[in-house]
Each structure stands twice: as C-alpha cells, then as structure tokens.
C-alpha cells in the first residue's frame, strides 16, 4: 500500500506552527538567560567559605540532575497547586527550564572556575582585591570562556527539552505538531517538518551563542 505524501496538508496550519516556534524561542531565551545567571550564582555559592551554602546548593544540583525533566515539570505544574502555588503553562514551563538549566550550568561553570590556575587568584589577592572583585574580574570571564562550548551545548539541550512542555498544554512547536497530526493524520509530513524546524532553530542558536561567546571573550592579542 503506497503512502501518498502530502506536505500541502500542513500548509493550512502554518500559523499554529509559527506560534509554536515563537513560544519555543521565548521559553529558550528567558530560560537560558536566567538559567545561566542562576548557574553562575550557584557556582559562586559552591566555592563559598560557608559550607552550609555550598551544601544547600549541592542538594539542589543533585536533586535536579538526578530526576527526569518531565517529572520536575509535572511537579511544578500539577503538584504545586496543592501547596497553593498555581502557575500558568508558560510560567511553569519557564520555571522548570530555568531550574533545570541552573543546576546543570552550576556544575559546568564550577568546572570552569576550578580550572583557573591558583596563581591568578593569588596574584589578585596580593593586589588587595576582595573576594567579589576577584570573582568578577579575574575568575568568571576566563572560566566562562573555557566552558563556553559545553554551556552552549547544555543551552541547546534545554531548548530541545522544551518540547516536553507540550505535556502541560504549553502550545510550543511539539504541541503544534501533535495537534496538526491529530487533525489530518499525516504523521510523516508533520513530524518531518517539526524536526526540520527544530534543527534550524538549533543551528541558529548555536551560531548565536558562538557569536556571543566571541564577543564576550574576544581573544586579546598577547602584548
């Protein structure tokens, strides 16, 4: 039985797909910016002198890294209302992505910080810089530069993970694809187009992050 391919069947639903792409992009942008900031704070806390803060952040990181993203999302969306915290799909999806990216990037950035030679820190201390100044001027930028490829990968993973948010009826790209498939039953065409769109968004995101990395950590020629 020959399957008749009909990509035209998707064309009437182009608006839904576009809305899906837009929402995925929104979730990713907000998730990435706030998530990486959270990760930076987390990495800073892990290096803190007070072991209590380091342990609390450590518990958060291990909790998030060792549980599935879908379970975290369901807990935030379906579970929190029992405690009186009711979030919309967008809020729950963004929160889950931030919390998830925050945990992974804490570890990634912490690895970058540990890779800074001790001599740099000692030199900064001998210049009477305090801890905050050392972190801000001497440690964090080289650390981010070192781990930027790994961090970019994690951000792309979180963007692709946003497809899970279709499970709480957030109308992103996967939700749009599932809906169109339920209406016209053209699974091959619909998911082919959705895959192509995710691929395009992924490639674009990596390119943007690369440009951003070059801008932020531009190579200074050795003096």
């Amino acid at each position: 039985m020959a399957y008749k391919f009909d990509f035209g069947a998707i064309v009437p639903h182009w608006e839904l797909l576009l809305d899906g792409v837009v929402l995925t992009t929104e979730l990713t942008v907000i998730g990435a910016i706030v998530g990486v900031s959270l990760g930076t704070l987390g990495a800073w806390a892990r290096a803190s002198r007070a072991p209590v803060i380091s342990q609390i952040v450590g518990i958060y990181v291990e909790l998030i890294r060792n549980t599935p993203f879908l379970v975290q999302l369901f807990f935030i969306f379906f579970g929190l209302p029992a405690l009186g915290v009711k979030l919309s799909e967008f809020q729950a999806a963004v929160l889950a992505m931030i919390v998830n990216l925050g945990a992974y990037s804490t570890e990634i950035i912490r690895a970058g910080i540990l890779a800074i030679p001790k001599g740099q820190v000692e030199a900064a201390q001998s210049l009477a810089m305090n801890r905050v100044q050392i972190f801000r001027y001497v440690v964090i930028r080289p650390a981010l530069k070192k781990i930027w490829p790994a961090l970019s990968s994690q951000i792309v993973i979180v963007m692709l993970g946003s497809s899970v948010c279709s499970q709480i009826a957030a109308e992103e790209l996967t939700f749009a694809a599932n809906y169109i498939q339920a209406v016209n039953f053209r699974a091959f065409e619909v998911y082919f187009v959705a895959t192509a769109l995710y691929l395009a968004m992924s490639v674009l995101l990596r390119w943007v992050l690369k440009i951003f990395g070059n801008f932020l950590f531009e190579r200074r020629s050795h003096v």
Partner: protein
Amino acid sequence: MNKFLKSTIAAIAMIAAPLAGASAGALDTIKEAGVLKVAVPQDFPPFGTVGADMQPKGYDIDMAALIADDLGVKLELVPVASSNRIPYLTTGKVDLVISSLGKNPDREKVIDFTDPYAPFYNGVFGPADIAVKGAEDLAGHSVGVTRGAIEDLELTKIAPADLEIKRYEDNNGTISAFLSGQVDLIATGNVTAAAIIERNPPRKPEPKFLIKNSPCYVGLNKEEDAFKAKVNEIIAASIADGRLNAIAEKWLGIPLPEKL
C-alpha cells in the same frame, strides 16, 4: 376415513403446529420457563465487573434484576464480551443484552433496541460553584480536554470564540489538570467523571451540560414486538418511580439527565 383425508389432516397439522409454536413470542416463553437470560459485561466498570466474591455487579446487572423482578421471573446472568454479545442474542442463548450497548445503523439491521436505560454522554463537568448551563456560559472559563477525543472535536465546534480550551496529551493529563485547578472545567465522558467522583476528589466534576449523547439501550431479537413493548414499559416505570435514578446514583454518582 380415506387415505386422502388422513394425509390432508396430517399435512395441515404439520403446517399448523409450527405456526402455533411461532405465535408464542419470547415473552411467553420466558414467562412459561420462569427464567430470564440476560447477557451482561464482566470487565467494564461501572456497568459490569466481578466483585471479590466472584459475583457480577454493576449498573447493567442491577438493570437486569429490575426487569426480571417486574416480569416476575428468575434472573440468569450470562457474562459476555463486546465481541460476542450480539451473536449470543441472535442465536437465542440469551433473551436480552444489557451491556452498555450503543445504537448504530449496522446493529439495527440485526437486532432491535428498546428505549435507553443508561446515560452515556460526553459533557462539560465542573465543581458546583461554577455556574455554566450551556456552551454560551463557557466564555471566560478554561476547559481541559484530551487532544483528539470526541469531546475535543465536538467542543471546538460549539465553543464561543474566547473560550480557553487546553488540550492534554492523554486522559491522565486532563484529569490532573482539573483536579489541581489548572483548568476550571473538564470535558469528558460521564463514565470518566463517575470514576473521578468515586475517588472522592477535592474538586468534584458535576455535570454542567451535554455535548453529545450516546445512551445505552437494551438489545433484543427482531420481531418481538410484545416483548419490546413490555421491556419499554418496565423501563418507563422505573424512571417514573425513581428506581432507575437510584441505580444511576449508585453506579455513576450522578443523577439521570432529564432526557435519556
């Protein structure tokens, strides 16, 4: 008597006897035997399941008992599955099929249906404090549905433009969304709503209005008009005196709709 007369009388007797037998319909046969044989489901709660004591129980079983009582005969339950319930009827192994049977043209070619006795509908449900009587009242609320289900397709057709329909991937997502309050109302089948109510949830899905009605009918063999009329009479009587409503409340947790 000559041979011709004898053979004529014999021939007439032979033709007449089956005719005499045929004029006794199913109703008379049942009353004579004193037993009503009814096909019931055994794997479809709340219509028919088997209890811990291995006895069948459910909406359909209670209905069968009611009909047997009103006919004044004993009840014999015959457990069947969806695939063999109609053949059991057409081959005479049972007199009635009471098994959450829906009416459709294909089945109408083979068997007859009485009036409806059980509600089986898709509708909008929600807690008592949300006042919604029809599709127009839905404006400003949010309704959860399972993507692609009949409720989804039908509700999309009749819903006002500013209604928020949230489509979840499966029944569990829809139910979780309703119970956690993420959506105000839920559009689903009445059997699902009954199952939710049975578990004593914090938010009860009480019926608000019907989307599509596909009630259950009692199936019986064709050309049994007297029997059909009698069963219809019993069904009408049980609605009038509230016995059918009691069965509905017991097994579905929801009273009968005004029009079955």
